[in-house]
């Protein structure tokens, strides 16, 4: 099984996802920023279930 080993604050790191694009013709930072914004929310969901609910 694939092991991702995400750090705190992420679930599928940008560095892994970035490699899944065949190419990026535009601004990579726009993609990265939006990816990471939702990463934090997904991280919080997993850990909130553990700590809050």
């Amino acid at each position, binding site marked *: 099984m694939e092991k991702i080993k995400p750090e705190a604050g992420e679930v599928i790191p940008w560095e892994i996802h970035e490699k899944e694009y065949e190419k990026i013709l535009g601004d990579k930072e726009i993609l990265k920023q939006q990816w990471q914004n939702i990463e934090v929310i997904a991280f919080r969901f997993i*850990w909130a279930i553990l700590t809050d609910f």
Partner: protein
Amino acid sequence: MADDMEKLYNERLKRYATANRNEKPDRIPIRPFAAEFTSKYAGFTSQEVTHDYEKAFEAVRKCAKDFSWDATVINMIYVWSGLVDHFGQKYYKIPGIELDPNAGFQYFEPADEEGAFMKEDEYDELIESPTEFLTNVWMPRISNNVVSVGEPNTYRNNMAWLKGGLSLMAYGGAAGVAVEKLKSECGTVSCVSGPIKAPFDILADKLRGFRQVSIDVYRQPDKVEKACEALMPYLYMNAKVASDPAKQVPVSVWLHRGTMFSKDMYERFFWPTLKEIIIKLWKEDGIQTIWYAEGNWDKWLKYTAELPEKSIIYHSDKGDIFEVHRQVGEKFAISGGIPNDLLAFGTPEEVKEYCKKVIQTVGKDGGYLMDASAIIQSDAKIENMKAMTEATLEYGVY
């Protein structure tokens, strides 16, 4: 927001923040952590406030207005059973379902190895990748709907993830509105932000269960220690991302099992990783922590005293609040200490007298916040809650 309400809110925020920093405000802030008491007072059943968070928020607002609370939690009945229902968690008993509609919700911890949500030989997997372990192993075990990796996928599995995520988003959005309403309608400060659990408590509460982890500390102590270290950065980040961006409202740590072990075990398994989380939040992020010492933590006061000055607000439950004040009152603000049994069974005169004693000793130089010892449930008498407010307004002015 009306000008007078904004003025009231700003006064209370200043009072709350000043006391939290162990300084002397204009008077002692009233900052109750009130749960089922709020539903009793507002005329709701426990089922209503557990399952309908808007009613829970409304009940808190009614209490905040009527009891002149400076700061409080927007909803101390923290388990919204709607999310539990959608995601399918197994470990809660919910009022109105398995419990009487007026009972408080209950957590059922795994009692044996067979029921444990993490097995004794799974430490390495947790240590290697905590978030993946939670997602792939722990969640399928705690949910009736989520399936393990490798099992055939199901419609219910897909819907559990979808509805679980949407539920948390819905609750988070509503909580933001509730914070604003508490401010604009009551002039009251939402007193707490992100949650911390000690890494060891997470192992004991939600992963292995206390009985199992009590065996692990003898049979595989190195793995328990490494698991606490592996969980630490994730629990730190979990608190940080849910904290107040303005850094005026502290996060809170709910302390559970640390008092049940020997000094050697506390020093090895419980204290180092919790200490590091709190110091990191304070030194790197400027975030204070409410040290909610459930039970009696007096025997560990010398360790707590190692934390940086002002980094915590020490909440005293069943400990001796006067001893807490003697030992750590110079370094940290202190809250609580008004016995819940006094609020449940005492008279208003007895409550006022006890509050006066705490105010005039623990609170004499500032750095004290009025609250019950433990979370206030439905057994607290309304007249005694009024007496707690009256005593603070009468004796707590500097």
